[in-house]
């Protein structure tokens, strides 16, 4: 990842700088200030943010593939995430709770959970309700 970043960062900086030039040159044709732009505060930071975002999106795509998501689904799944969600997933996908509900694996602590179920602290075994 680090080597990849080192390779990609200069390219991305160049791409973003070049990409923003025509917009400045053609200014009078109503190129308005975007909503997301204002929501994200200052501009210099934005460029740095955008580079981080692009890298984070690649990172999450890679992680989703590792998790067994179909290759042709990966792109659209990452595209539907907001920037904040992408960086959250890039940083800590492995620690994220994944809603699933598998009770079988918990047999080892059956007795403790049975007691806490009866106390109304947990909701693992439906028959205690």
């Amino acid at each position, binding site marked *: 990842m680090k080597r990849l970043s080192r390779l990609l960062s200069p390219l991305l900086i160049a791409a973003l700088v070049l990409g923003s030039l025509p917009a400045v040159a053609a*200014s*009078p*044709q*109503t*190129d*308005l*200030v*975007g*909503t*997301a*732009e*204002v*929501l994200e505060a*200052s*501009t210099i930071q934005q460029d740095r943010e955008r580079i981080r975002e692009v890298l984070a999106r690649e990172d999450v795509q890679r992680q*989703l593939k*590792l*998790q*067994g*998501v*179909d290759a042709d*689904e990966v792109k*659209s*799944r990452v*595209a*539907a*995430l*907001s920037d904040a*969600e*992408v960086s*959250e*997933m890039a940083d800590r*996908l492995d620690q*994220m*709770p*994944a*809603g*699933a*509900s*598998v*009770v079988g694996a*918990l047999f080892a*602590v059956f007795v*403790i*959970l049975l*007691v*806490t179920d009866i*106390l*109304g*602290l*947990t*909701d*693992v075994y*439906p028959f205690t*309700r």
Partner: protein
Amino acid sequence: MAISLMQQPSRKIPDARLAGVFALMLLIISLSGCATTPSLSAEASRTLARDTLIEDVPFHGQREYQCGPASLAMALAASGVDVEVDTLIPQVFLPGKRGSVQPEMLATVRRQGRIPFLLEGGFEGLLGELAAGHPVIVMQNLSLPWWPVWHYAVAIGYDRRAQQMILHSGMTPRQRTDFDRFDATWSRSQRWGLVALAPGELPARIDVSSGMQAISNFEDVQGPEAALPAWQALAERHDDAAMPYFALGNAWHATGAVDGAIDAFRAATDRDPTLGAAWLNLGLLLQAQGRESAARQAIARVARLPGPWQERARRQLD
């Protein structure tokens, strides 16, 4: 002497075991937080309906591990999107984790053309949404923090007399769970809840900034035309705030409605005369329409405002 030494431990072991079990139970109870009935503020207690049940939420039973896609299918159906669980599984399920993570739950709602709003206001907020007819996807840890059983369910109603929550959960439609037990399991996800709504509808409780964020994220995925009704609704709900009008202006402009955009940017500058971006956009649009003097006036406002748009405004005036 020797005999009494031998005997002493054997007499003490049962006591120690009992004390150990007792200590463990105390530890569990103290660490997992006691199951106390969640309380409502006096105001909510007076204004909230005694009970409510959103009748038209279809039930989809979950197959193994698929409570995420199943919950989404139910909430989306209630908002008018009929989508099969099987369609959603490849969009949200993570085979490696055998479950679905929260950010992707939000992302999948966006892909289906609905806006995901994170629930605000905890338990009281949850009852408020249900009373307003919005089913809420909740994340629970049904077990203890050390052996988590993370689970998504759809809250579809409540009964304050019986102190019960009504949920489509797992294989059980309209499951009734006591308030205190539900809140104990729900609080372990920091009371995470998700409301999926058609653009133009808003949660019962939504503040300006989180509304802006939710709709802006939706707009990035589905485009300004789809987001337009949502901006209109947010501007109407928070009529004194400038930012929703600013966003509405941009959405109008992106769909080609210049007059609507000009009105919206004007409304934004009326509400917050220091919002440079709104003055700038207003000026640029007026300029494009050939209304030079009005345009210069608006852009001159930005040029006097210290901020990120000052530079651009000065260039525009030269």
